[in-house]
């Protein structure tokens, strides 16, 4: 059967050896996409709970201030920034724009992302 799934094909996607920048960017986009989707589902679930009244809200806020949840939220912010910026890169490339510089653009957006994530981390853990 053509295009049929198999365990070897699945495992090849997770083989990190000898991969180039382009594949790493792709893997990053997939992983952040899954992360953001999971987060979205959790978020909607939480909102549903919050609609049940003020006590639910207060207990939720208490939970949200714990370091573990804060870290999780930082990951969400990171995922959003990376996925967004890389998404712009992929969209541009897909329309034949700046394809020859895809590696350099990825490095630049990584640097921008790390800077932005560091700022958010500082903001979330030391100021808020």
């Amino acid at each position, binding site marked *: 059967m053509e*295009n049929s799934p198999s365990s070897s094909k699945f495992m090849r996607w997770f083989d990190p050896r000898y*991969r180039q920048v*382009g*594949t790493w960017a792709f893997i990053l986009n997939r992983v952040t996409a899954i992360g953001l989707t999971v987060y979205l589902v959790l978020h909607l679930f939480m909102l549903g709970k919050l609609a049940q009244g003020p006590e639910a809200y207060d207990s939720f806020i208490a939970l949200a201030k714990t370091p573990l949840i804060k870290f999780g939220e930082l990951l969400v912010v990171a995922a959003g920034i990376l996925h967004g910026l890389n998404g712009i890169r992929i969209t541009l490339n897909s*329309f034949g*724009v700046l*394809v020859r510089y895809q590696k350099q653009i990825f490095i630049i957006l990584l640097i921008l992302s790390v800077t932005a994530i560091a700022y958010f981390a500082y903001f979330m853990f030391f100021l808020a």
Partner: protein
Amino acid sequence: MTDLWNISLIISRQKTARKRYFDTFQLEVNPDEYVLDAVERVWAFHDRGLAFRHACHHSTCGACAMLVNGVEKLTCITSIRSVTHNSGKLKIEPLRNFPVISDLVVDMSSFYTNLELARFTQVATLKDASLPYEKEQLDTTHERLVDCIECGMCVSACPAAHTSEKYHGPGVLAAYQHSYNQEKDQFLLEAVDCQDGVWRCHNAFECSSVCPSNVDPAWRIMNLRRIIIQTRLGRLFKK
């Protein structure tokens, strides 16, 4: 005289209807020789049963592409020095994403069939043979054999080609782009404007990174996408 190196060649073997296994050979080689020379030595002096493809030994025919230590290489121009060290190992396997006929020989017939469908011609003017972003002469009086040597390394490196057997693959899509650039035939665009054509590509760029011959298939795929979108939008607004 260059000092000789002692290296181990670990070669993938597979005979019809039998399981794949590896054979190890110890060789003394000149490190400035090429990986293909080492494989040929194994055939000439150690095991005449070894099956492998080679013809021109100077990167014009594309026959000798193999996986060397896990990476696609054109073995006739890959020096032993560049892939290992003295007392080192060289793992030699056939290209990925093609059925193996025997040892290091793979079946690329569907690849060639698709290249024929793309009406890919090997000889073109200097201008048509080079990429638009290169500052080569816009010469239309001289001709040359084009860059793509149909070695299949791009298909071997492509993760999408691994997952999807029906995917045209980078080499074939690059060929369509090359033909379209010369003929401007709408039929060529329609042939790749499909789920298993240009839209299957996920921008891994592995193809362009392993191509030994300046084809830049990834760029060509994106170029096709741009042309297809422009054509579609144009049609939309004409209505």
